[in-house]
């Protein structure tokens, strides 16, 4: 005989306004199996919870129904209260009489009747509830950080400093990411490399960090606390331990024509190279597509020059396996491809801006390299076509961003500040030059950000024009920029020497592949989805996988760093216990009935169902059945709906319970 207690909450006026709580409580007391029925003005308050605890003890209740708000709000609260009264928390159910009743109905009598029905359903369910125990899973205290930009570096250092080992995987030959290529940073104009490179060196020297450069995540298996990650280390053709980074090899390399990735094609590099002088690790890499020895079998000058005998032309890709407890994805961004050649000699995208056709139309990251002391011009602003110092420079905002027709609907957030910074850096180097900015809105929300933009206008004399540029043409070596100043209500044509396009931020290439490997969702643009935009901003819906930096959405350096530290804190929080506890409301296969069709396995969005072999005592294989991995199952119930033989059920939400709920309404 069930002894169920029903506790109906007034929620101040929230529920009581449209529902006759007293009448509900009286009617609930009459439901089969209900031992007692009580109300409280605020059931979630301390006195309310005490009422629940005391009643459970006094009436020796074996099931509890709380009629109040959404379980998303307070299910945890009430389950904890029951646990304190020695009642298994999974014997507590909630009837949502606020969001799904009082808030959405106005007719009191009918809302009251519906509230009673909701409680009736919950009571019918709780009569079939079983006591459940949380699932315990062991934790491997080691973290994988994917991406060695500023976010990945911050996360890796925070975690490593707290004593937890970190595996940092970076696709490029050096860590540092986009930030390493910036000249100066807003809003302080401090040198980007000066603040980043010490952190990079720290990563290289940290005893708790294993760094894999030229590497990508090949495969991720397992589940929270127990991932097994395979990393593909691309052949570097250099023995990193023997190499001293002296530079003899790249100074002698005769293949000097490859456009430098680090300078975004503005400069050239050799086939054996380090991307930039402060690269970490400070070891070169051989570009297998440019090296004369690897492509044509000739040359080998670097071998002769190398005194450390570190060149390895027979180097092969290598697969490294790591046991990992948590994963932080920090793969960062790339710029929107402004002018895409369509293979037939035409340029799509922003064809009217002539990017890719006119050498003096460049992207904002290319401009960073032009200004940077380590850049192709040694920090002198000289335009790519003829090396002249540009006297008029036009900066264009929102190239790709906020452009539904051609690019992306979202605001890339950093470009307003980037443009302001660029006008200042330009003015500081070319005193008699004039910077123009075309913008739609100035979005400079942030500490000292708006002041920074005003400084660019008021002190450094940048001309800001509200309006978009429609077309750029080339005449006599100058770029004719046709725009408009909508505030003046006048079309505006500027003859410029250099045009800088602030292209939109997009997630790095291949982020979708990685997201699928770690089961993290991504939006239509490829940005990774957080678990909750406000309250769980670095968690994802895949347990044990966290995001930070620009792979999650457009953001600047301070925000990326903040988020990276937040992700690190979340990982350390997870590791603060020896074992992880998970909700036990997951799928369970009744193996004696399973026919082994594996429809469930194919449909499971979390890859939580594995085939298991049933063997007899002699070890002979009897048959294969589906088995749920309790570490991975999220309890969505897709498998339950699909199972033909009805041999999968969801703990805490069994078919028996659901049928009883439906039946109770007859």
């Amino acid at each position, binding site marked *: 005989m069930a002894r169920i207690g029903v506790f109906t909450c007034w929620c101040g006026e929230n529920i009581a306004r449209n529902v006759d709580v007293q009448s509900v409580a009286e009617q609930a007391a009459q439901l089969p199996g209900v031992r007692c029925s009580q109300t409280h003005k605020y059931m979630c308050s301390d006195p309310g919870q005490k009422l629940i605890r005391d009643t459970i003890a006094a009436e020796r209740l074996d099931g509890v129904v709380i009629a109040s708000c959404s379980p998303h709000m307070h299910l945890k609260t009430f389950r904890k209260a029951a646990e304190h009264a020695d009642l298994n928390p999974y014997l507590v159910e909630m009837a949502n009489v606020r969001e799904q009743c009082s808030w959405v109905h106005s007719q009191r009598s009918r809302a009251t009747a519906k509230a009673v029905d909701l409680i009736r359903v919950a009571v019918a369910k709780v009569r079939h509830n079983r006591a459940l125990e949380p699932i315990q899973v062991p934790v491997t205290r080691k973290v994988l950080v994917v991406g060695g930009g500023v976010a990945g570096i911050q996360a890796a250092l925070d975690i490593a400093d707290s004593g937890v080992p970190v595996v940092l995987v970076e696709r490029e030959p050096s860590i540092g990411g986009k930030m390493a290529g910036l000249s100066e940073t807003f809003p302080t104009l401090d040198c980007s490399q000066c603040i980043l490179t010490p952190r990079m060196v720290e990563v290289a020297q940290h005893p708790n960090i294993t760094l894999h450069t030229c590497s990508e995540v090949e495969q991720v298996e397992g589940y929270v606390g127990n991932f097994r990650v395979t990393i593909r280390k691309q052949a570097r053709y250099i023995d990193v331990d023997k190499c001293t980074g002296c530079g003899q090899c790249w100074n002698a390399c005769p293949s000097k024509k490859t456009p430098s990735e680090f300078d975004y094609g503005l400069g050239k590099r050799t086939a054996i190279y380090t991307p930039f002088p402060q690269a970490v690790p400070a070891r070169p890499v051989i570009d297998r597509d440019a090296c004369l020895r690897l492509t044509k079998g000739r040359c080998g000058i670097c071998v002769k020059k190398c005194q450390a005998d570190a060149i390895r032309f027979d180097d092969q890709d290598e697969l490294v396996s790591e046991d990992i407890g948590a994963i932080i994805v920090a793969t960062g961004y790339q710029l929107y491809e402004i002018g895409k050649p369509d293979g037939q000699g035409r340029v799509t995208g922003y064809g009217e801006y002539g990017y890719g056709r006119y050498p003096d139309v460049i992207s904002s990251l290319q401009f960073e390299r032009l200004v940077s002391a380590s850049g192709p011009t040694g920090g002198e602003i000289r335009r790519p076509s003829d090396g002249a110092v540009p006297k008029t420079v036009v900066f264009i905002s929102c190239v790709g961003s906020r452009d539904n027709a051609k690019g992306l609907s979202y605001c890339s957030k950093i470009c307003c500040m980037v443009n302001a910074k660029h006008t200042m850096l330009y003015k500081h180097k070319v005193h008699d030059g004039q910077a123009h900015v075309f913008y739609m809105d100035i979005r400079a929300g942030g500490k000292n950000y708006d002041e920074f933009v005003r400084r660019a206008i008021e002190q450094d004399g940048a001309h800001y024009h509200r309006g978009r540029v429609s077309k750029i043409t080339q005449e006599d070596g100058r770029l004719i920029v046709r725009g*408009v100043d909508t505030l003046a209500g006048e079309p505006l044509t500027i003859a410029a020497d250099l045009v800088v396009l602030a292209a939109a931020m997009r997630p790095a290439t291949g982020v979708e592949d990685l997201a699928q490997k770690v089961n993290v969702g991504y939006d239509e643009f490829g940005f990774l989805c957080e678990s909750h935009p406000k309250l769980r901003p670095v968690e994802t819906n895949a347990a044990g996988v966290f995001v930070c930096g620009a792979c999650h959405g457009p953001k600047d350096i301070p925000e990326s760093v903040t988020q990276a530290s937040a992700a690190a804190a979340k990982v350390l929080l997870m590791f603060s216990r020896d074992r992880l506890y998970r909700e036990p409301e997951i799928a369970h296969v009744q193996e004696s009935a399973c026919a082994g069709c594996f429809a469930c396995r194919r449909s499971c969005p979390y890859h939580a169902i594995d085939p298991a072999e049933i063997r007899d005592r002699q070890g002979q294989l009897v048959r294969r059945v589906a088995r749920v991995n309790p570490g991975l199952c999220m309890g969505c119930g897709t498998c339950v709906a699909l199972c033909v033989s009805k041999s999968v059920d969801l703990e805490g939400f069994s078919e028996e319970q659901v049928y009883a709920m439906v039946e109770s309404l007859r």
Partner: protein
Amino acid sequence: MPQDLSLDTVEELAHARVQDCYQCGKCSAGCPIVERMDNLPNQLLRLLQLGRIERAAASAAIWECVSCMTCTTRCPKAVDCAGLLDALRQLSIEHGFASPAQRRTILFQRAFLDNIRRNGRLAELELVRQFKMQGFLDDLSVPQLFKDALLGPQLLRRRKLHLRPRRVKDRKLVGRIFARCQANGEKP
């Protein structure tokens, strides 16, 4: 029966949504004849957004538009700006907002279309005759009547003026094209 001057009418005529416009100004920046406009295309759009249809429809700028469609093509929000200006011209005609100078533009356009309808291609002398006569009947201005007379010899020399009209063979087909265009323009 003139259509009423509401934003709904404009949007229905143009099959465009005015509120989509976020006033970036790319339409004005790219417009080849923007220097001749009293209101820039983006300003016309703004007037429409504010519901000031009459002011937009009475603007001289809508008669300067040559329907090159650059604004529509480059609009980042896919607002059919040229189509909206077309709708404004239609409303302007129906409500008689056009100034005398603009009325001549309308007369010319009507005479031009009429000519094409009849001949299938342009018969220049016929067009000049029809346009000048109707213009004269409208404002009785003698200077206007003879204003372009000196262009005649030049046009002749450059073979832009054909004394004998050349017509297309299948003029019924032209009639059907016109019929279909007008059916599309009507309200469903």
